[in-house]
């Protein structure tokens, strides 16, 4: 059977991504909205099985927006950015623009940033991390340039003393000393500044506010993800997490065997799943869409194929989906099957979402 995995169809084809790929997979955002119902175009048909039961998932995803994307998202930006950073840049009217302009530039320079990119943030935490990343890059890039300029001038400086013989201990010139002291001082200042910024950004990672809308347990296995929705009507899925857009979701991370690492770059930084330990990660998605992630800690032979998808749904849809899942007790059998799929289909990446969500 030839079907295309969901991430092929979505998430590619941004304005900032002019490469070959985007032409192959470019799907107009508006068309996508109706795609599931109308089965319009081969790509969309291929995706159909996945969402046959949820025809109204918004197919519009983060990658498929046009250049209006950045303007569309500047509301409430301030709350998502560490205060200190914010204060520094308060006058900049548009946070998303700040975070994304260099991203767009980078994307232009290097092709598409893709469906699993830390530079294409779509959640509170990932936004803040991207901002921090670009600040660091800018500052440190400048430091590198200054150092290289210093080296260049050191080499090309006009010598007043051509053919001078080697000297055991020449008198140190005053200019050199001053320059040295200045460089040292600025190193200390820059590093302290960056450390403070980093501490501030750290709050985003370590925040422990109560009251997430949904709590989900994710259990890592070689080489698949077991996802358990807690609560009275708990149920399980595999390799796919559905979350409501706009509300915080807590993910409890534990492992059934070795160490894995849960990482959805567009939503949040990664966190390990460690035997004997339970870690908690909060994610939140801005927009409906599918966000891909992948195990980030080497966990054995098929580590490369341990992908996971986060599907962000409008809250109402999410509730409908959850009710439907919860209703009949889901047999565990499908999980075992899932495992087999992984074991057997070693070389076919990410044994599609569709296999188990049917």
């Amino acid at each position, binding site marked *: 059977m030839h079907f295309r995995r969901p991430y092929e169809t979505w998430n590619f084809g941004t304005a900032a991504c002019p490469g070959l790929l985007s032409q192959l997979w470019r799907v107009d955002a508006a068309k996508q909205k109706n795609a599931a119902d109308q089965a319009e175009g081969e790509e969309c048909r291929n995706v159909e099985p996945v969402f046959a039961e949820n025809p109204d998932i918004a197919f519009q995803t983060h990658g498929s927006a046009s250049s209006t994307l950045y303007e569309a998202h500047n509301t409430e930006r301030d709350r998502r950015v560490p205060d200190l950073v914010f204060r520094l840049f308060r006058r900049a009217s548009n946070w998303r623009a700040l975070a994304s302009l260099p991203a767009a530039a980078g994307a232009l320079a290097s092709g598409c940033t893709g469906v699993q990119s830390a530079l294409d943030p779509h959640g509170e935490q990932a936004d803040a991390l991207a901002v921090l990343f670009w600040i660091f890059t800018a500052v440190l890039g400048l430091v590198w340039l200054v150092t290289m300029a210093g080296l260049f001038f050191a080499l090309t400086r006009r010598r007043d003393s051509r053919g001078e013989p080697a000297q055991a201990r020449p008198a140190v010139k005053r200019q050199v000393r001053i320059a*040295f002291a200045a460089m040292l001082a600025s190193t200390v200042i820059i590093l302290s500044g960056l450390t403070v910024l980093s501490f501030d950004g750290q709050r985003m990672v370590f925040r422990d506010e109560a009251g997430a809308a949904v709590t989900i347990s994710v259990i890592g296995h070689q080489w698949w993800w077991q996802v358990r929705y807690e609560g009275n009507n708990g149920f399980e899925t595999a390799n796919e997490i559905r979350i409501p857009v706009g509300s915080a979701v807590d993910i409890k991370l534990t492992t059934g065997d070795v160490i894995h690492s849960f990482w959805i770059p567009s939503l949040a930084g990664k966190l390990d799943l460690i035997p004997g330990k339970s870690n908690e990660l909060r994610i939140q998605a801005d927009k409906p869409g599918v966000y891909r992630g992948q195990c980030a800690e080497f966990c054995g032979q098929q580590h490369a194929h341990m992908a996971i998808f986060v599907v962000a749904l409008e809250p109402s849809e999410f509730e409908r989906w959850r009710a439907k899942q919860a209703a009949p007790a889901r047999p565990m059998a499908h999980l075992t099957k899932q495992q087999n799929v992984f074991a057997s289909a070693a070389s076919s990446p990410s044994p599609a979402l569709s296999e188990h969500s049917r």
Partner: protein
Amino acid sequence: MSQAVEERHETRDTDLGDEELRARLSKTWGTARGLIGILSTVDHKIIGIRYAVTAFVFLLAGGIMAIIMRLQLARPDSHFVDAELYNQLFTMHGTTMMFLFGVPVGEAFAVYLLPLMVGTRNIAFPRLNAFSYYVYLFGGLMLWGAFALSIRPDVGWFSYVPLANLNFTPGKGPDYWAQMITFTEVAALAVSVEIVVTVLKQRAPGMTLDRIPLFVWTMLVHSFIIIFAMPAIMLASSMLIMERLVGTQFFNPDAGGDPLLWQHLFWFFGHPEVYIIFLPGTAFVSAIVATFSRRPVFGYLPMVLSLIAIGFLSFGLWVHHMFVTGLPEIGAAFFTASSMAIAIPNGVQIFCWIATLWDGKPVLKTPLIFVLGFFFIFVAGGLSGVMLASVPIDTQVHDTYFVVAHFHYVLIGGTVFPLVAAVYYWFPKVTGRLMDERLGKWQFVLAFTGFNVTFFPMHLLGLHGMPRRVYTYPAEMGWGGLNLLASTGALLFFASFLLMLYNMIASARSGALAGDNPWGADTLEWATSSPPQPQNFDRIPCVTSGSPLWDKGDDKAVVGGLKVDERELLVTSVTEARPDIREESPAPSIWPFLAAFATAVAFIGSIYTPWAVTWGSPVVAIVLVAWFWPKTIEENV
């Protein structure tokens, strides 16, 4: 032991003319011919060359692994190698590069050069030195021999548990891996002790602490780091092998153990390890910058202090490899701050070198050109390290290709580029012939372009979401282009090493004759002939400044009074380097080789049965007794 006997043999160097002295000393200190002679030698120069050649062979082997990996990753969904083999490849590549190339190559240069630089006739504990080389060689042969026999570790160069435990990784791969660590660390510890003692007790008279060449200071700090870091990894690797072999439960949470214990122990060694590999690079840079700027390095005191600071700080950073394991916030903050702090002494060193070039008159020969490549690459790698030090940023880029890019920038930029520079720089001392300059410059062009084309795109790949240690990736991820670029660069980069190999072989045969001091350098190794005599110096030099060969005046002071027909060294005081006593230096012996062999058999046996330790120990003990059997009487008669 009568006075008479002593006196009869007591020809002192002051009694002889230059010609005869040289001949007699080289007979005393020489290495015998024949297989036994070769295996018994204790000449630090011969052992240093063996170390270096072995390390280069491992570099090439690791490089071939890397090329195969890059061929696999060049295209998405590729089937050039399968998952199993790929995992073995990156494990062998990382392990070989870190343990069998990175650490030993630094030791190699130290073993060869330090005694020459401090003006003595042999390294301290020369038999231990021979032993350490054989242990290292056997460890490397064991790992690669097992690889050839399809016993292959495949859990990465830091073998995280529980993946490396028996139930997830059956077979003997990780056991060989763990035992190889034990081998190479025994070797590194031995060399470090020799270096510390040589530097502190065998310096030429007058070489006070503030006249020690920066190269020597750097290797001293390097050795202390090894002495404090290696025990952690030997402990860890022994625990791992016990976990696998006799079922201990150090890392099993169900039995009260903790998998994070492994990570703490490993990285408590693993981070200093990075500096262990990088510091020899800075040692080469200090020597080369000084020589080619015709100036001693600017800011001797700040340089030495930053070296010492790096030594201490390198032990306070290990947790930054564990930022995503779910640390408490305050702990994470502490290790962010300490990781940022180590950038300061590194920065100081960079500024000092640039200031030296600024003040002096740089001569752009191949060694200096490679050092300039070092600045370009290493500074970039250091700065991406500052990014990784930030916990929030690390949560995104940890364990991605961004990190792969970062550590190749520091390891290759910080160690391999200076190393190539060092090869061009000291090759004439070792062989008596200069390497070809034109080929050297071509090599630089290849290496510099190849390196950046390979590793710069990896930063972007990591940010675009590509995790490290994946044997393939789906085409739809859009990583194909950058990966193809990286693979192309890797071929160029690898070719640059083949060019160097050719240049070395060709130049060793027919390069231009070098003379004693072809670069007009200032340190004592250039006062010896090229290649140096077995005794290094006919007469022990007396040092009156930090740049002895740049002192004005033609007369070089020497000290006299060492015996000519026995291996005698001058031992001096720690700070002032005042002559203390004459000390006998051990003669060649086959026992270190046999001891290393016995140790190797016991270690390898212990992979299969714990009883090997029991049965191996007495054998090793017997060999050691033979090694240390006192022979004073024979020698003095």
